[in-house]
Structure formats: structure tokens, C-alpha cells
């Protein structure tokens, strides 16, 4: 018996029971080895079920467990920190032939994993409201302003109605009224201890993407503006302030996050 054969047989139901296992009463060692196989597979499926409850609802419990089991066999965790085990699950779902008929499933999985990331993201204190107000009142300095955003904030732009589908399975909205092929841009964030998911205009998503990439406020508005349409950042800035997602303010030539 080597650890390697023991390990390899854990996630491969077709592999024979490792040799060198013995039992006190001569009972079947393979059956006993099956306890380990079952523990490993079931615990990994449970870990995925914890992170992807809406994907599970969308495909049903039995199908989800089979799909998650297949993922676990192909991609066992590489870290003991199982919170991050779903990292590659959305890509797996996107390429999993049996769900080709549910094209939005992978993006719903992306949304759910973003919620996991937001839930566990680093804590960061918001810039005091008075300081934000002082910055925003200095109109000349606004275009060069840099905004540092809370680490929980993520944008998921999808060709499918992922926020509505996710919300309907949370009990908000009626599934029958949703056109899954309607593109939606989702924001995922943590405000205090609560993770929130909301749909925003695609331009607002581009604006946040640009800010997160380090663009100044002026450049981010430019990048968010679509063709001739000028993007008004006021509503999304209001959202960032109300959800306490501004954690640093600086000017263009300053270090990110340095207070102005």
C-alpha cells in the first residue's frame, strides 16, 4: 500500500481497493475503504452545495450532486481552505455537456461564487461621509479623483438575467416573468455583515470595472460612456456611498488610497 494508491482510489470509483489493507475479522476491506471514499466525495459535494445553493435549485438536488461529484473527481481541492473550493466550478459548469441546455447556469454559478468572495472579503473602513462630501464639492478636482473601493465589490456582466434568476430563487420576483436571455449586469457587495446582489446598468458595471483598474473618476466616466451617450455616474456614486464602499480617496498623481 502506498499513500499514492490510497489517494488515487479515493476519488476514482473504478479504481480497485488499495492493497495492503487488513481487517481484524477478515471482513471485506474494500467495503471498509468505501467509508473513506464516501466521506471524501460526500464532503466535497456538500462544500459545493454550501457555496452554490441556487445552482442546486436550478438543476435539482440529484443532478447537482452528480455534477458536483464529477467536478470533485476531476478537480479535487488543492487547498484545505474549502471556502475557495468553488473557484473553478463555474468554468466546469460552462463546459459540462449535460447542462448545455441551461446556458445561464455557469453565470449563476459565477454570481454565487462572487457572493462567497464578498462574504469573506477583507474588512475595510469607509471614508467618512464629510470627507467624501468635501471631495465631491471640489468640482475642478473631480475628474482627477481616484476612488478606492471595498474589496468585496464585484461586477458580473452576463448575457443572461442572472440577478433576476438568482432573486427569483431567493423568493423575490416570479420565475415565470423572467426572460433568461435578457442581459444583466450584477453587482455583488458586502455592506456591514450582509452580502447584497443587485442589477445595475451595464455602463455602471463598466464604470466600477474602470475604477477598480485604477482609472481616475474622469477616465472611468469616459470608459463607461457608450458611444454618444454620456454616462452619468451620480446614481452609482450614490450607491457606493450609501453602501459604504468608498474606502479611500486620492488624486490622479497620488498613490491609490492616499487621503487627499
Amino acid at each position, binding site marked *: 500500500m502506498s499513500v*499514492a494508491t490510497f489517494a488515487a482510489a479515493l476519488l476514482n470509483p473504478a479504481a480497485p481497493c488499495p492493497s*495492503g489493507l487488513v481487517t481484524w475479522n*477478515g*471482513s471485506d476491506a474494500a467495503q*471498509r475503504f468505501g467509508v473513506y471514499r464516501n466521506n471524501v466525495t460526500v464532503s466535497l459535494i456538500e462544500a459545493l452545495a454550501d457555496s452554490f445553493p441556487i445552482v442546486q435549485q436550478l438543476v435539482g438536488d440529484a443532478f447537482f450532486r452528480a455534477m458536483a461529484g464529477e467536478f470533485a473527481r476531476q478537480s*479535487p481541492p488543492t487547498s*484545505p481552505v474549502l471556502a475557495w473550493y468553488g473557484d473553478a466550478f463555474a468554468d466546469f459548469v460552462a463546459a459540462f455537456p449535460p447542462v448545455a441546455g441551461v446556458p445561464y447556469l455557469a453565470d449563476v454559478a459565477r454570481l454565487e461564487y462572487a457572493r462567497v468572495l464578498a462574504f469573506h472579503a477583507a474588512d475595510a473602513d469607509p471614508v467618512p461621509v464629510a470627507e467624501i462630501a468635501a471631495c465631491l464639492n471640489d468640482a475642478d478636482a473631480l475628474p482627477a479623483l481616484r476612488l478606492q473601493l471595498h474589496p468585496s465589490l464585484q461586477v458580473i456582466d452576463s448575457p443572461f438575467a442572472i440577478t433576476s434568476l438568482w432573486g427569483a430563487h431567493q423568493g423575490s420576483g416570479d420565475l415565470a416573468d423572467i426572460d433568461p436571455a435578457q442581459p444583466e449586469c450584477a453587482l455583488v457587495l458586502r455592506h456591514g455583515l450582509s452580502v447584497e446582489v443587485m442589477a445595475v446598468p451595464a455602463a455602471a458595471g463598466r464604470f466600477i470595472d474602470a475604477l477598480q483598474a485604477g482609472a481616475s473618476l474622469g477616465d472611468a466616466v469616459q470608459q463607461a460612456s457608450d458611444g454618444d451617450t454620456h454616462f452619468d455616474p451620480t446614481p452609482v456614486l450614490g450607491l457606493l456611498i450609501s453602501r459604504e464602499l468608498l474606502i479611500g480617496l486620492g488624486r490622479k498623481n497620488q498613490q491609490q488610497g492616499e487621503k487627499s
Partner: protein
Amino acid sequence: MTEFTSVGADVRRGGAGLPPAAGLGLKPEHYLDVLETKPALGFFEIHAENYMVPGGPFHHYLGRIRADYALSIHGVGLSIGGESPLDEAHLDRLAALIERYQPESFSEHLAWSSHGGNFYNDLLPAPFNAATLLRVCEHIDRVQSRLGRRMLLENPSTYVEFDASDRDEAAFISEVVARTGCGLLLDVNNAYVSCTNHGRDVHTYLRALPLAAVGEIHLAGFAQETDSLGAPLLIDSHGAPVAAAVWALYDEAQALTGPVATLLERDNDLPAFPVLLAEALQADRHLDACRKLTRVAA
């Protein structure tokens, strides 16, 4: 080998250990119950890996609860029994967590869970022989020197044995404790499960363990299946109340060790907090009974 039982730094950093009282595993489902009711428990225990995340609610609540209670950090991912060297990145995460929360106790398992870069999320068995002993002791030495503290090693639940084993489990554990200076986390349920599964006498097993090194006791429930010959095969499920036979073995162990911090483990089929608390208070009654017996004997 480094001696960890009496150095000053160890005492300052939690070497004083957990209080000899009942504790519970801290579950996110119960954070608010704990904060609102402040139950009379000796300590809470967390699984280290669940808190190896940057921020958010887990740290928020653990920080608040830790302010009121002694804390045990229990690792499930170091793979101390593994063939590969310890994962230093994981050890760094563990050191950071321990630095942050300054727990009264840190413990891990006599088992492996990682191999070839994969993590299997289960506590897997290894043969009890010289090669495993060397690896386990090297790994425990590394953990204790990296963390600058003594750790407790938990006896395992196992379902198979190896023809490559050349000594019994209790002798193996005694050797590890003697060589590394680590303490023993005596899991009474694991002792019962493993002895049942391998046809051993649990009373003999118990007395062959290095009981003077016990720093904590675990109690849990098991599930009962049968092997291919119809003999009982007990599964360490952490999903049921503690069995009567395990309570009895707990009393027997305490008569040998004296009162020791005792954790009620429940990770699956989690009941409401008051149900778990009642089981912990039952352990406290057993601890009280043990104290009375000890006084009478003295």
C-alpha cells in the same frame, strides 16, 4: 526534540490550556445564540480552516465571542500523517490565525488529508510503523517550532488497518508524545469507534495511551453500520448525540486523567443551540462527578 511543556513563552501564549469544563464547537448558525444568551461554557472550539479567510462575518463574530470565552483552535488540514512535507503556506495561515486569536489550545489529527497537491477533506489513516512515526514526529516538531507552542494530537477514528503496521495505535501515539513533547487530545468517541471497528479492547487501549499528556477530551456521536461479516462498523459522523457507551468510557477516562476540558463535537445534522448546550451541560455534570470522586479518593 524541542521541549514545549515548560518554556515561559509557551505559558504566556496559551500554554495554560483550556479550563477543565465543557465546551462546544462554534457554528455560524449559533453566533447570535451565543452572543445573546452568554451560555455558561468553559470554551468554544473552531476549525482553523474555516477562519482562514480575510474578513467578514466569521471574524466579526469570532472576535466578539472570543472576548468572552476561552478558545480552542482545531486544525483539520495540516496532514500531519502525510507523506509530503507540511504545506508551509498553510502553516503560515495557521500561525497568523493563532497570532490573531491567541487560543488557549491548538490541536490537530493523527491522520493525513493531502497528497500530491490534492486535499481530500477527510482524516485518512496511515500504517503504524517506524516510517510513519518518523514523518509524524518531524511534522509535529515543525508545527510546534513554527507556532512556538505545544500542540495536542488527536487519536483517530479508523475503518481499516494496514499489513504494514508493526505496532499498535496506543504504542504509536505514546512514542509520538514522548518524542515530540506534544499533548494528547483524547477523542473518546474515536477510541470507541476504532476499537469497535478493529476488535480491540477499548479499556486496554485507553490505559495504554499517554494519559498524563491529555490536554482536552472530545465527545461525539457515531453512526452504526455493519461490515461484510455483520460485525458493527462505526462511523465517526459527528451527526448524533453522544452514545451511552461513550459517556461511560468518558467517565472511565476522567477517573484516570482527572477533570479535563471536554468538547461536544457536532458538525452534521446540527440541532438548535439549546440542544447542544444541554449535551454540554451533561458533560459538565460528568466533570463534577469526577471531581467529587477525585476528592473522595484524595
